[in-house]
């Protein structure tokens, strides 16, 4: 996916990423305890607060909830995607700045046979690993609430949630390797993550936004992820739309990955 030409004596992308597994595993062993709160309890609280308690006041015709039988069933597929978004952005902002500016781990890695594309790749693969565990736990916690219409729907929705996370992880990493100061991250969170979470169909149908805003929302990768995740969970799949959703997410991820690797190379190779 990233710049693919391998210089003489260089490593393939897989080899380069493989050599960093011990590093990222050590990082994970050091940080997983903090992550467990957010990956297990916060979805539970979200579902209780938004879905069960708030949702108890909401009685809507399923036709207006994109086919969901309850408000809880409506928001669950979007909540997981929103969770993936938050995690992906969190893991590709401050940790990336840390690698460049504070701990300088990227610089240390660049002095070895590893190249920028390997370093960026391993960081993104670690984000994927975090997404697998976080979204996996989220989906398992939700299963007993009877929000999934079929057994195969959530199984297919899971990789969609991961892919949506990766789309944002890679693009945000592309930004993080280019900005000079962590102040930019406040902007990403306030003007990126927040509106995407709130207005991309995770908590209410985008049709409620009015025609202009609705189409704006539909243009974001977030909506494509939420929509595909929801169609699969609620068994309301429009396969041609699903293909569009998938194509958008795959293209954004592929572009972001390449862009992040290239940006890191420009930053490290002076």
């Amino acid at each position, binding site marked *: 996916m990233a710049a693919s030409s391998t210089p003489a004596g*260089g490593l393939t992308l897989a080899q380069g990423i493989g050599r*960093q*597994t011990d590093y990222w595993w050590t990082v994970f062993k050091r940080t997983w305890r903090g992550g467990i709160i957010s990956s297990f309890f916060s979805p539970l609280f979200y579902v209780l607060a938004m879905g069960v308690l708030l949702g108890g006041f909401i009685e809507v015709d399923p036709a207006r909830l994109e086919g969901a039988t309850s408000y809880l069933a409506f928001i669950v597929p979007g909540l997981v995607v929103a969770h993936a978004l938050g995690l992906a952005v969190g893991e590709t902002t401050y940790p990336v700045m840390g690698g460049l500016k504070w701990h300088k781990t990227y610089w240390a890695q660049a002095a070895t046979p590893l190249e920028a594309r390997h370093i960026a790749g391993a960081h993104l693969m670690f984000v994927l690993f975090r997404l697998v565990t976080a979204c996996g736990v989220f989906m398992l916690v939700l299963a007993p609430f009877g929000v999934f219409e079929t057994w195969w729907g959530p199984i297919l929705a899971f990789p969609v949630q991961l892919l949506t996370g990766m789309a944002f992880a890679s693009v945000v990493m592309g930004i993080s390797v280019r900005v000079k100061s962590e102040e930019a991250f406040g902007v990403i969170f306030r003007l990126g993550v927040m509106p995407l979470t709130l207005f991309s169909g995770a908590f209410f149908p985008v049709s409620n936004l009015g025609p202009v805003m609705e189409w704006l929302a539909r243009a974001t990768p977030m909506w494509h992820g939420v929509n595909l995740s929801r169609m699969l969970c609620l068994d309301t799949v429009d396969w041609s739309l699903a293909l569009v959703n998938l194509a958008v997410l795959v293209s954004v991820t592929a572009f972001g990955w390449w862009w992040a690797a290239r940006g890191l190379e420009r930053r490290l190779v002076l």
Partner: protein
Amino acid sequence: MILARGLRKSFGDFEAVKGIDVDVRRGEAFGFLGPNGAGKSSTMRMIASVSPISGGELSILGMDPATQGPAIRSRLGVCPQEDTLDNELNVRDNLFIYGRYFGIPKGEVNTRVDELLEFVQLTDKARSRVEDLSGGMKRRLTIARSLVNKPDLLLLDEPTTGLDPQARHVLWDQLFRLKQAGVTLVITTHYMDEAEQLCDRLVVMDKGLIAAEGSPRQLIEEHSTREVAELRFGIVDEGNVHEQIAEKIGDLGRLEVLPDRILVYSPDGEEVIARVHERGLEPIAVLVRRSTLEDVFLKLTGRTLVD
């Protein structure tokens, strides 16, 4: 090991290295001596194959860094000017993880890590977090890390900058032992004592160019006298008092007039001091010493190394 011809490096309009020729042979300790901003670190980063050259030729271990960077880096040890240790990991993990970047099998890395911790005297700190180490210990850990792949060529960028004298001596001792073991060392420094202690051969760099090249002794013989008499005349009010004094003793040897003292270069320093007194001058302090690389640098560039 290293062959550079007309090597250049520019950043935009700024030219950090302006065409230098360097040969480093196997087993020697080679130094780049010069003040901050002389182009030493830029040269070092090009040699480390992490910075593309802007002009000229460069060959490292017989390979071209532009096309064989990863292969070169796999055989280099790099001790950067700023520590790039992972502060949140413990000492042992820092070495282990670094070894894994080179694709060394786990078992072998573990053995090497133990040996290296022993070598840099950090065995009892193996489980400490890097954050809690002193500056000297961190530097030793960085050196241990740079040795994890058993490099053919070890690059040390300002290895003892910021360390206290005792820590510097510990480090020098370790570098000296590496040199004895046959590791080729390339060192940048702005400390002339470091260059004299460690380097078989060095180049004096200034403003991106090489001002002189040779062994420390050759350089001193070529560019300075055997001895130097340092004369201090206390606090001088308005600038030109030193110049007036200099006029009176100009025939005693080559002079360097510094803000706080006058240096007189002569084969016999005591003789110079006797003559100075004969002429009725009363320096408040005098010192006769051997010439050092500092004097060489002063003569070549008109400036001191550390200012």
